[in-house]
C-alpha cells in the first residue's frame, strides 16, 4: 500500500472572524495576505514535505486552489518542481491539476514532463475539474467544465506519446504545431490518479481509463457505493477492479494526549472548515455539474468537501444568504467537527485511538493508496510535525502490516485494470461494509 502525506498549505494568519463574516474562505480579500509570512510558510511547507519523506511516507500529495487562504498552493507545479529536486524517494502525487481552469494543456504537458524528469520518474499526475469557485477565479466557463477537462486530458496524453510535430484542432484547444521537446521519463507517461468527491461521471470516466480513483474524505457508505459503481463499470470493460484502483484521503491529526489532539484538531473546523470553502453561489456555478449529478447531490446524506453538499445545493436553490451570527456559525462548525469524527470522516486523537479507526477505514474501503491530510487552521509548525511523526512512527508500521493481511495492492505494484475478468463471471467485492451497520454509517 502507498501511504501518502497531504496538506492544503493553509495560510494561518487570517482572523477566523473574516472567514465567518465572508461566509467562506474563497473571496476573503488578499489585503489579509502578508508576503513576509507567506515567504516563511511556502518554505516551511516544502520542508514539511521533506520531513514526510524522512519519516517514511511513500508519497507527498499536492493540490491547488485559487483566491483563498484555505490553500496557498496556487500553482502546484512550482512546488512539485522544487520537491522533485529536493526530495529523493517519495512519489510526488498531484491531486490534481485543474485542467479546465488552466486552459493551456500543451504548457501543462511540458511542465509535468520536466517535473517527471527532474524527479527521475517519481511524478504521479492527477487531474481535477477544479472547484466551482475556481471557475470564477480563472474565468473558466463552468458550462464547458467537463468538456474542457476531457479534451485537455486527451490532448496531454497525445502530446506525451505521439511523436511530433503534429497539428491539433479541437473544440476548445488549437495548436498548429505540437512538438514538446520535454517528454516524461516514465513510459508511456506518468501514472495518473484521479481525486474526487461525488461525481459519478468522473468515476465512470476513471473506470474507462483504468485510473485509480481517490475519494476525498467522502462518507463511507456512499464511498462504498462509488467503489461498486467503478467495479461494475470495470467488469463491463472486462477487468476486475481491486485495491489498486482505489485510494482514500482522510483528514487526520494526532497529538501526545487526547485532549490536546481534540483541541488542536479544531483547526479542521477553523472558519467553519470544509463547509466554508466557498459560498453557495460560487460552489455550484451554472452548468458546472450535469443535471444528473445535481439530482444525486440533492440525495447525498452529507459531504462537505470543498463545501460541496446537499446543503449548498439547497442554498443555491432557495438562496438562504442571511449570515448567521458569528457565534452561531462557530458553534455549528464545532458540532460538525464532532459529527465528522463520529462518521470517521475526520480522525483525531493519539496513536492509540487513531490506529483502530484507520484500520476500520482500510477494512471497509480497501484502498491501495491512503493519504492523510494534516490539520488546517492556526496550528504551529511544531504541532503539525508532531502529528506527522506520531502517525509515521506509531501508526504507519501497523497499517502496513494490516494492509498485507488484507491483501491490499497499490497501483505501483499492480497496473490498475490489468486483472482480466471473463465475460459472465461475477466480479469480486471491492469493499467490506460489514463494520458500517453497527456504527450506524450505512
Amino acid at each position, binding site marked *: 500500500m502507498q501511504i501518502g502525506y497531504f496538506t492544503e498549505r493553509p495560510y494561518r494568519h487570517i482572523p477566523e472572524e473574516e472567514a465567518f463574516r465572508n461566509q467562506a474562505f474563497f473571496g476573503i480579500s488578499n489585503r489579509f495576505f502578508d508576503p513576509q509570512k507567506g515567504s516563511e510558510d511556502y518554505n516551511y511547507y516544502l520542508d514539511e514535505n521533506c520531513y514526510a519523506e524522512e519519516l517514511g511516507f511513500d508519497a507527498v500529495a499536492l493540490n491547488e486552489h485559487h483566491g483563498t487562504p484555505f490553500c496557498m498552493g496556487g500553482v502546484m507545479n512550482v512546488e512539485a518542481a522544487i520537491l522533485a529536486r529536493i526530495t529523493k524517494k517519495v512519489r510526488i502525487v498531484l491531486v490534481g491539476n485543474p485542467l479546465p481552469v488552466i486552459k493551456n494543456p500543451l504548457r501543462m504537458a511540458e511542465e509535468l514532463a520536466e517535473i517527471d524528469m527532474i524527479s527521475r520518474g517519481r511524478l504521479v499526475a492527477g487531474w481535477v475539474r477544479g472547484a466551482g469557485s475556481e471557475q*470564477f477565479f480563472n*474565468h473558466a*466557463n*463552468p*458550462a*464547458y467544465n467537463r468538456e474542457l477537462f476531457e479534451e485537455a486530458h486527451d490532448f496531454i496524453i497525445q502530446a506525451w506519446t505521439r511523436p511530433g510535430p503534429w497539428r491539433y484542432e479541437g473544440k476548445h484547444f488549437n495548436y498548429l504545431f505540437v512538438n514538446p521537446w520535454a517528454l516524461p521519463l516514465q513510459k508511456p507517461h506518468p501514472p495518473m490518479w484521479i481525486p474526487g468527491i461525488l461525481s459519478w461521471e468522473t468515476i465512470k470516466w476513471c473506470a474507462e481509463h483504468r485510473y485509480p480513483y481517490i475519494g476525498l474524505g467522502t462518507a463511507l457508505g456512499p464511498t462504498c457505493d462509488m467503489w461498486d459503481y467503478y467495479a461494475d463499470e470495470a467488469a463491463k470493460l472486462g477487468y476486475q477492479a481491486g485495491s489498486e484502483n482505489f485510494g482514500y484521503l482522510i483528514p487526520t491529526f494526532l497529538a501526545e494526549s487526547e485532549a490536546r489532539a481534540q483541541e488542536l484538531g479544531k483547526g479542521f473546523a477553523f472558519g467553519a472548515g470544509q463547509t466554508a470553502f466557498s459560498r*453557495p*453561489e*460560487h460552489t455550484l*456555478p*451554472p*452548468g458546472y455539474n450535469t*443535471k444528473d449529478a*445535481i*439530482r444525486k447531490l*440533492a440525495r447525498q446524506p452529507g459531504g462537505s468537501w470543498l463545501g460541496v453538499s446537499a446543503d449548498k445545493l439547497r*442554498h*443555491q*436553490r*432557495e*438562496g438562504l*444568504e442571511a449570515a448567521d451570527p458569528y457565534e452561531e456559525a462557530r458553534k455549528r462548525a464545532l458540532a460538525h467537527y464532532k459529527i465528522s469524527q463520529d462518521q470517521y470522516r475526520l480522525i483525531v486523537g493519539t496513536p492509540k485511538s487513531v490506529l483502530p479507526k484507520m484500520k476500520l477505514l482500510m477494512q471497509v474501503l480497501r484502498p491501495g493508496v491512503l493519504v492523510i491530510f494534516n490539520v488546517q487552521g492556526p496550528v504551529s509548525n511544531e504541532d503539525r510535525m508532531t502529528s506527522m511523526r506520531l502517525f509515521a512512527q506509531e501508526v504507519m508500521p501497523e497499517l502496513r502490516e494490516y494492509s498485507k493481511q488484507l491483501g491490499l495492492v497499490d497501483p505501483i505494484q499492480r497496473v490498475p485494470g490489468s486483472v482480466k475478468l471473463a465475460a459472465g463471471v461475477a466480479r469480486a467485492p471491492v469493499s467490506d461494509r460489514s463494520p458500517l451497520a453497527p456504527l450506524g454509517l450505512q
Partner: protein
Amino acid sequence: MSFAVRRNGRFNDTNLTENNAVPKWYEDTVRTGGVDLALVKGGSGKPLLIFHDELGYTGWMTWNERLAEERTLVIPLQPGFGKTPRLDWIRDFRDLAAFYARMVREMRLDPVDVIGFSAGGWIAAEMAAADPHLLRSMTLVGPLGIRPRRGEILNFIAMTIRSHLRATVADTVNTPEFGKIYGGEMTPETFEAFEDARAETTRLGWEPFMHSPSLPYRLEGVRVPALIVWGDRDSVVPRGVVERYAEALQGAKVEEIRGAGHRPEIEKPGEFVRAVKNFLAA
C-alpha cells in the same frame, strides 16, 4: 402544424380564458436548423416574434395577453433551455442569432417585428446587424450585448438563482406577476429549468461577459426601426448599455420607464404595453 395544447404547470398558468373554454396560447414545434424548436404561440394578427430572456420563458402574463389582442405572438423556447434540445454548434449569441435568422426565413416570417428581453434583446440586435432585412422593427428591453462605458452588466452568474431572479425586478413585493415567476419556493423541476437556462446562458455569454465588443460597430448604419425600453431601476443592465445602443442605432427611440427594474413588462405592464403598441403602430 401540430396543435399541442399543454398546461404549463411550471408557471402555474391555467392557459384558459375566464370561461375555461378557449386556450389563450399553445405550444408548437417547428423543424428548423436541424432541431425541433419548441414555440409558444397565442393571439391573432400579424406575427410578433418574441425572444425571452436568459432565465427562459416565464409564462403568459398580462403583457402577453394585451399584445396578443392585436398580434400573433411567436415565442421560441431557446435551444438548451429545457424544451428545445441544445445545439452544440451554437457557441455564442451571434451563432444563436444566426439560428433564429434561419428560423425566421424558414417560417417565412420576414420581415418581422421582434421584441427581445435582456439576452433576447441581444439576439435581436445581432440579427439586425447580420441581416437588417429580416426585421421590420425591433424592440429591445433592457438588452444585454454591449459593454457600457460606465457601470457594469450585473454578474448574475455568481449569484444564487433566487438572488438572480430577485435582482431582475425593482420591487419584488409590489410586482404581482413576479410571484408567477418565483413564488418563494422552487420545485426541483423549476430549479432545473432555471439551472438549464443559466447554464446555457453561461455557455454562450461567459467571455466576454454578456456582450460582444464588435456589436456596436456592426450595428452602426443599421436602419431597422428600433425602440429601446429600459427601467430606470434596472440593476442588471446599466444605463450605459442603453446609451451605447442608442448611439449605434441612430434614430432609435428610448423609452425609460420610471420605477421599473429589469422586467418593465411585468413591473409596469400598462406603460410597457402602451409604449410597444405605439411604436408598432407608428
